[in-house]
């Protein structure tokens, strides 16, 4: 089963290779991995999409925790979470296709971020299903280039707790 694991790590030299080396050395799967600094510049946040049975996921979480540069590991599948991915897609657009391309962009609430007489560069965000769908629709027009960020995700704030928090803030 697919799992999204959120890993907080030290923001320093070589940490990415320790994490990547762990996955390759132990034969764990990485479907995607994204990493960027957090609000606290001494830490980075990684989002790893992986898959495996329960035993493998347990080992992945434990092995990640064992890495000395890893500060916190959360298997997001254990809670509610929201996830997003961005894709940038460069499509060929001959005269007749330009209108069709724009219609698709509109339907998916995507944006055209660059344009030439023969291409559109389209940016789209969403869950992986949405990205797959727009790619499928654009494919007949001719996709010249495609880049995807891989997923990022955060746990949902539990609703009750969020309500209490909101009240507290309102009171202050």
């Amino acid at each position, binding site marked *: 089963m697919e799992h999204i694991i959120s890993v907080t790590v*030290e923001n320093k030299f*070589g940490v990415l290779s320790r994490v990547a*080396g762990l996955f390759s*050395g132990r034969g764990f799967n990485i479907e995607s991995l994204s990493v960027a600094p957090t609000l606290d510049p001494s830490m980075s946040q990684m989002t790893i999409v992986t898959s495996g049975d329960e*035993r493998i996921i*347990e*080992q992945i979480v434990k092995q990640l*925790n*064992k890495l*000395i540069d890893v500060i916190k590991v959360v298997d997001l599948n254990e809670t509610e979470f929201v996830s997003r991915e961005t894709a940038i897609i460069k499509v060929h657009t001959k005269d007749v296709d330009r209108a069709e391309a724009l219609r698709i962009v509109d339907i998916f609430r995507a944006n055209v971020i660059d344009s030439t007489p023969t291409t559109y560069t389209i940016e789209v965000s969403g869950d992986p299903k949405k990205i797959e769908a727009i790619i499928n629709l654009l494919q007949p027009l001719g996709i010249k280039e495609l880049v995807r960020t891989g997923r990022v995700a955060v746990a949902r704030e539990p609703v009750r707790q969020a309500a209490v928090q909101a009240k507290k803030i309102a009171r202050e």
Partner: protein
Amino acid sequence: MKLTGAEIFIECLKREGVKTLFALPGGVVLKIFDTLHQQKDVEVILTRHEQGAGHMAEGYAKATGKAGVCLVTSGPGMTNVITALADAYMDSVPVVCFSGQVPTSLIGNDAFQEADNIGLSRPCTKYNFLVKDVNDLAGTIKEAFYIATTGRPGPVLVDIPKDVSMAKADFTYPNSVSIRGYNPTVEGNKWQIKQAAEAIMKAKKPILYVGGGVVFSGASQELIELAEMTQIPVDMTLMGLGAFPGEHPLSMGMLGMHGTYQANMAMHYSDLVIAIGARFDDRVTGKVSEFCPHAKVIHVDIDPTSIRKNIHVDIPIVGDCRTVLRELNQILRATVNGEQKDLRKPWWDQIRDWQQAHPLTYHQEKDGPIKPQQVVKRLYELTKDRDPIVATDVGQHQMWAAQYFKLAKPNRWLTSGGLGTMGFGFPAAMGAQAAFRDRLVLCIAGDGSIQMNMQEMATAVLSKLPVKIIILNNGFHGMVRQWQDLFYEGRYASSNLGTTPDFVKLAEAYGAVGLRVKKVGDLDAVLKEAIATDKPVIVDVPTYPYENCYPMIPAGGCNHEMILEDPPELKMKQSGGAKVTPEDKDTVLTA
């Protein structure tokens, strides 16, 4: 006053209580060696190969329980020490290895003798550091020792570029370390420990399965108390030998692939496995799906990844063996009474039956070829009063050493289990001897393995490390030959060593002492002579080339299905009934 990086390095070693450094110089570490040369607090043992330095650090660490330290140069020095680091990583040995690196300005330029030390060592170290600024050196070394020796111990590498060893900085040594991503759990969960105690009280057929973790945490006393109080038999892994006294009536000896019959049967038929500091290696579990089919499993381990890695666990307890056992014993002390003894009487009857049915056996004819088991047995009997430290290489001789040398205490057993590194024994023995100059240190070696680090004899002679090497010389990569006889229809592909040096002359060539046992009747006299010699000694013992090590569970087999003796066709072949190839005859003659 400002110190150079090299001076800071030495000050740090002193603060960490390091008295011995196993090392071999080279261009980028010359400044450090030059500084070492001008002081007396840290002794430098000059090895002949960096692998030797690494294994010596391991032997030192296993015998003392403290970190062993080695120092190597960049490039080939680093690649040479990798085997030892990988060995230490697999067997959880606290080693701190310092490597030289090209100057920071040249890193990445394919400079002379440059290697990516961090990249090379990443998969075989617990952690590694590249020190880019001399101001970070002291703090890094402190962290390196802390990481190597706490939690699940392991090797740590500190890579020091040449310019960092020459640059100057103020020296302050931190008192403590705090790493936010590294906080080993020492105390076990109290509720889980209570669960464990209840399971132990109820079990009819419990077994203790103890490993290297008991040795690292110094929990032998607690283990003995637990076993005696509850009258539970004790199985030891290869790495756990010595954690529980080998001659104790509750000791079942080693379990696993070459474990004793009773140890494996007791494990297979138990209803409660109490695993303490052991990691369910495949040499122990055999076929995982049929491992301990009737048992509940309690697993105490400081490393959460060890738990449920290979087998299902019912009561996991993450924590230090000693701390957890103390707590567990305290609960049990209040509850244990005579009832358990009655409850377990049938279990003990069964175990005694197993013990009597198939004890470890071999047959030594009075005038026949020397049997390797006989050598280990006599060596044990002749030295046990001196509480020796015993190192082994890897192969059949290692297994016979494990079976017949019954260690009474922990930290006396130096062997390579996880990686199974031939050539480990001799340098490891030297490392232990360097730590304990007055103790008797033995190395039970194979004629194949010893040749992998023979060059260290020069180090032993130079540094006056009077290790006694006993070579069980069977003319073969015996362990390989055994598998070929059992599973490859006796085709000896590259297992016949063909030619072996005259080990007596070889010892003498190095300035050590060489002795040979010519017939079994001379065994005791020669061993005694070796033990009484105050120099490194090689005792060459030509042994019967076709002896096989039993019991044996074939790889992937079930624990209760052991091969206990040579199958009939093999017996035929050995008694001359079957065709013997000319190649084989040669070996019989030369061995």
